[in-house]
Every structure is written in C-alpha cells, then in structure tokens.
C-alpha cells in the first residue's frame, strides 16, 4: 500500500465531504428565504432544541461553574490572587465554557435526534413521499431546523451563563468563604458586554453547525438500521469536532477585534 496514495485519497475524500456539506448548508440557508415557510415545523424544532435541552445544559453549566470556582481559587491562591475567582468564573463561563459545553451537550442530544429522525424518514421513503407531495425536504425539514437551532442556542447559552455564574457563586460563598455581595459586585464589574456578545455569537454558530450536521447526515443516511445508526454517530462526532474547531477560529476573531 502506497502511503502517499492513501494520504491523497483521504485528503480528496475530506475535501469532497467538506464541499458536499457546504453545498448542502448553502441550499438550506437559501431555503430559509424561499416560500412556503413552515412555521409549525419551526416551532416544533425550536421547542425540542431549546426548551427540552434546558435541563441538560443548565445542569452542565451549574456544575462547570462550581468546578471552575474551585480550580480558579486553587490556582489563584498560589500568588495570593483568590479574589480573581468571580471574574474568571464569569469570563470563563460567558466567553468559553457556556457556549462550548452547551454546544457539545446540545450536539449530543439534538444532532443525533435530528439525524435519526431524518435518516429514518429517508430509509422508510418518507423523504421521497414528501417530494411526491410537492413539498421540498430542504424547506420542510432542513430550513426550520437550521433556523430553530441558530436561534435557540444563544437563548440556551444565555441561561447557561446565568446558571454557570450561579454555580460558581454557590461554591464561592459556601466553600470558599466569599461574601455574596462582593462576589456579585466583582462579577458585574469585570464582565463586559463584549464578553456576552462573543459567547452568544458563538452559540448561534454552534447551533447552525449542530442542525446542519444532523440534517446532512440524516439526509445522506445509508440503508437500514445500521445506516441510520452510522448517520447518528457521524452527526454527533462531526458536529462536536466542528464546534471545537470553529470555537478556536471565532475566539481568534474576537481576540483580534
């Protein structure tokens, strides 16, 4: 086996896959602006992605905020900087951990569910049935989910931000002897609107990625239960990797401006 040929094949396959996803995403975005619009499908997807993800995202944020407070305290104590706990917790949660962990949790829950639902529709010929019923699958299935996830993730992350800071506050006042008023004042004083905005922009992009990967893998699902299973796994894995890669790119961008 020629290793150069293997690398070449893998590179070509990667580029072809990236191109297919880009074309699919462009068609999905274009479908958002072409009537008819499916409001019920959008609301159903919004409820599923936003409201029903609240428990998992909220719990993740609370525990992460608490752990971050402990870790920051332990690190800060080495140079008598324990007072940085509120600001680091707030900035860490709002700029980074809220959107990234929220995105990853939603990717696990939502990208898999979208891929499984659409993949099952494909293997049971429901996608073909949609077409014969004069309904575009891109407009009916993909566009509402793309829009719902892009709008729901920032709201979810806003809640996660509040709960993450709350988790840090609880740990700080119960375990680290912080004064509640001082902790909250430090949090508010150090947090800037740019921190919140950058986190919410990241969340919107991550929401788009989650729905895109779920829809793309579902629409290209293989035959049978194994095909749907593979599509589901691929949706979660690709969405998670893309979230982490995009997070770095967006962080670089916000770092530069």
């Amino acid at each position, binding site marked *: 086996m020629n290793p150069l040929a293997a690398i070449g094949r893998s590179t070509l396959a990667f580029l072809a896959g990236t191109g297919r996803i880009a074309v699919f995403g462009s068609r999905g975005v274009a479908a958002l602006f072409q009537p*008819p619009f499916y409001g019920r499908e959008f609301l159903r997807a919004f409820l599923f992605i936003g409201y029903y993800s609240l428990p998992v995202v909220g719990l993740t944020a609370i525990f992460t905020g608490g752990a971050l407070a402990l870790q920051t305290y332990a690190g800060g104590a080495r140079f008598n900087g324990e007072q940085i706990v509120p600001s680091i917790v707030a900035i860490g949660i709002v700029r980074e951990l809220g959107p990234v962990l929220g995105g990853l949790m939603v990717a696990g829950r939502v990208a898999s569910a979208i891929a499984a639902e659409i993949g099952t529709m494909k293997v*049971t*010929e*429901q996608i*073909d049935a949609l077409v014969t019923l*004069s*309904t575009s699958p891109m407009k009916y299935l993909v566009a509402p989910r793309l829009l719902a996830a892009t709008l729901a993730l920032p709201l979810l992350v806003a809640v996660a931000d509040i709960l993450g800071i709350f988790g840090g506050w609880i740990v700080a006042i119960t375990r680290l002897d912080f004064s509640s008023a001082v902790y909250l004042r430090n949090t508010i004083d150090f947090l800037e609107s740019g921190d919140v905005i950058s986190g919410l922009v990241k969340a919107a992009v991550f929401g788009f990625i989650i729905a895109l990967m779920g829809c793309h893998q579902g629409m290209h699902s293989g035959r049978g239960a194994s095909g749907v299973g593979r599509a589901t796994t691929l949706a979660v894995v690709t969405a998670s990797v893309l979230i982490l890669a995009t997070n770095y790119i967006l962080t670089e961008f916000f770092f530069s401006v």
Partner: protein
Amino acid sequence: MTERTRDDIMIRAEGVTRAFGRKRVLRGVDLAIRRGESRVIIGGSGSGKSVLVKCLIGLIPADGGRIVIDGIPLSRATRPEVMRRVGMLFQGGALFDSLPVWENVAFRLLRGEDERIDRARAREIAIEKLARVGLGPETADLYPAELSGGMQKRVGLARAIAHAPSIIFFDEPTTGLDPIMAGVINRLIRSIVGETGATAVTITHDMVSVRTIADRVSMLHEGVIRWTGPVAQLDEPGDPYVTQFVRGAPEGPIHVEGTG
C-alpha cells in the same frame, strides 16, 4: 406502437439507464404507457422496478435516455409540474409518523408548494378520501403507529389520490399483507383507477395483483423491458423468462442465486 398518436402516450421512456457505482440497474428501458391504462411492471427482487419508477418521476435522476410525462420532457419540467400530475403509494406506506392520519392524507393540500387550502376544508377532503378507501372518520385522528399494515396502505392510497392525480404509481401495494387484505387493496386500486380514469403504473411480483390490476404487463429483467403484452397473454406469453416468472418455477432461464 406506431399507430398511436403522441398525445395518447402518458408516460414514455426511451433508453433509460441508471447505475449505482458499477452496478448497472437500468440498461436502456423503453416504455410507452397509454392514458388511462393500468400497466403493471413485474420482475424479480432487485431487478430495478422501484428504481425505474423513481426515475420516471424524477425522484432518482436517470443517467441517460429520455422520459416524457404527459407530453413534458422530464429534463425540462420543474418538479412541481411533474408532481402535480402524480400520486404515489409507497411500499411501506411512507406515512409521516408525527402527523395524524387526516393530516397525512391532506398533506399536499395543507403543506404542498402548488396548492393550499384551509385546514377545515382539507380535513373534509381527507375524510372523504378515507371513506373512499373504506376507512371511517374515527381513523382520522389516529396516528400511523396505531394502524395495522393494511390500514396504513389504505391511508397511503387515500393520500395518493387526495389531489386527483392523472398518474398514480403503486410500489408493491400488497407486500406484507395477508391474502384477504391484499385482495381488498387490489380491488380498491382497480376501482379507483377505473373511476378516476387515471393512468396507473404498478410494480409488483404478486401475480394475483397483476391479474386483478393490470390492463397490460411489462417484465423488467436484467435492466431492460423484456416483454410487454396484455394481461390475458400472461399464461402464454411466448417468452420463457416470463413463463418461468409467472409460474414461479425455480428451473428455467432466470438464474436464482443459491439454487445452483
């Protein structure tokens, strides 16, 4: 064939080919189906019957050849132009699990891109169509998962005829049904096609269905239409392949894998 006028032909396929990777499923299919005719396409499992039907309506793009539906070349028609003329009953029903029966039947009327009516009127039409396939209004608010296989096929049939299409495709309409329910579905198809005057294209390997539904029969074998003739000629088709298939005989020119 030459004496027919062009307008007499509802579906015409000339040299249609389609491959999946190296597997050439359709190798040059020629078909001419007259308006109002009920054509059944028979062929073994995996012979490409479903692929052919999906190519005929553009669900799967053909690699080569020419398809004309109701005088419109498929290559130049928009999807709504084609689908406006078409209704299709899928093999597994392909009902939408998240919607009640009546919304499945009225799906095109509620959500289609070319025709929309208000929900109350759409529900009335759905209940009319359900009655036409022998289902009472009490089934309207059930979900597909609550229906038996036979009921799902009937709902699928009601959905296929809800907008009065001029061409109806039936993909293995009796697969998975007991003989009595299969008989009910066959009779429904026959009567609905007769009443509406629609052109019907059915793909099946159920010979009872063929004899109930068909005016003419075509056999697809190894990617081409091997034989076409009236249903009355099925017992003496003059083609050993068709004879073997109709009789269900393991011995004959059609090689079945695993039989040596």
